[in-house]
């Protein structure tokens, strides 16, 4: 029952936000989106070019959603279009969670399968918690303030200070050029302040290729899910590509770093699933400040003056330019 309430409440709130954007027929816009626009994952039994195929499918879906919104609302701004897309996606997730739970419940009742019912009963608290987070996220995206997942993008922004003048290096992804303690600093992040994650892997690949591998270090920063015993805002660092995509962006980062033999560092800011998709809390923000300090220290201690360093701030850049 609670899940049905969450779905209906999410729908009501989304309609309200879409009405505030002066959209005609927001209900139809959501109803026509939910259940559609699924993506069938590529065949993994044949691993050759699976990443290329996955990337193609992701781009195709992304473009289809964009086209759907633009067809329904032709004169919408880029930021509002991105906000509409996120609201549609959140409603879709809430409906899906509800449907899956009802599916297992109905199956359990139909075949008198008490094992299935018990599994559902034992997991329902976690499922409700997840659904609640998605319902609350509708408000967060409606408000427009940065969300927890934007931690990486905010670290990138902090390194820039008041630097402006970015160039769009990949779709919805921007590159800033600045300097830090005698080092040339390239900062990549999604194009804000709309709710988008951009294509940071592709952007990094293009940048390093254009610089013909003359890069001393690549530092990736992203939000990471914490374990229950960990505190929100804890910062950890290591090596590798800090990015939680389905594969194409992460592998692009790994490939270009290994092709050019450039060390690839990772800095993560820990938070719960709820915090990741809702307005950034103070604890997470404090973690962002610490992460920015770690990135600065890494640059100072592991590179020399005159070197070129790339920092990639991964995550949703809602409310962050």
């Amino acid at each position, binding site marked *: 029952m609670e899940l049905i309430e969450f779905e209906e409440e999410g729908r009501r709130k989304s309609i309200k936000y879409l009405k505030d954007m002066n959209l005609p027929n927001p209900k139809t816009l959501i109803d026509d989106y939910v259940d559609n626009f699924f993506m069938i994952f590529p065949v993994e039994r044949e691993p050759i070019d699976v990443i290329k195929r996955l990337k193609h499918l992701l781009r195709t879906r992304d473009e289809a959603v964009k086209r759907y919104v633009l067809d329904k609302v032709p004169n919408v701004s880029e930021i509002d279009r991105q906000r509409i897309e996120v609201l549609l996606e959140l409603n879709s997730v809430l409906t899906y969670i509800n449907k899956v739970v009802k599916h297992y419940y109905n199956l359990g009742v139909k075949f008198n399968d008490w094992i299935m019912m018990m599994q559902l009963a034992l997991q329902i608290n976690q499922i409700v918690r997840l659904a609640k987070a998605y319902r609350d996220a509708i408000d967060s995206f409606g408000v*427009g303030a940065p969300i927890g997942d934007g931690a990486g993008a905010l670290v990138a922004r*902090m390194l820039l200070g008041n630097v402006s003048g970015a160039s769009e290096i990949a779709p919805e992804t921007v590159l800033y050029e600045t300097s830090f303690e005698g080092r040339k600093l390239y900062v990549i992040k999604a194009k*804000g302040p709309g709710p988008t994650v951009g294509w940071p892997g592709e952007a990094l690949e293009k940048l390093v290729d254009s610089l013909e591998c003359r890069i001393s270090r690549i530092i990736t920063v992203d939000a990471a899910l914490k374990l229950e015993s*960990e505190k929100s805002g804890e910062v950890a660092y290591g090596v590798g590509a800090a990015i939680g995509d389905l594969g194409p962006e992460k592998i692009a980062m790994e490939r270009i770093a290994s092709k050019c033999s450039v060390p690839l560092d990772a800095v993560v800011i820990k938070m719960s699933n709820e915090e990741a998709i*809702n307005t*950034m809390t103070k604890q997470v923000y404090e973690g962002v400040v610490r992460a920015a300090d770690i990135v600065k220290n890494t640059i100072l201690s592991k590179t020399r003056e005159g070197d070129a360093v790339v920092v990639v701030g991964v995550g949703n850049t809602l409310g*962050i*330019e």
Partner: protein
Amino acid sequence: MLLELDPLYILLIAIIVFLSSYLLISYLRESSTQKKEEKGKIVTVKKCLSCNYVLNKPYDKGEYVGRVGEKCPKCGGEMMVTAIYLETPPQPQEAIS
């Protein structure tokens, strides 16, 4: 008057009073818990690009990190939004850390 009532009626009234107060207390407790969950305010931090003066204020819709525009109340320089976050009261620690 009370003494003239049947003891059964008195018992019935007592049960009704008990049940109503129980329901009222449960409702009040639930609504106060919900209020606690909702509590929290979004804060915008602005910093002057000239004199580094920092201003904390409640978040207004449309503000974003990196936005420049307002004048500094101290020196008249430009102020930039450097952070936006949600301030929540400390939550009780339930997990073993």
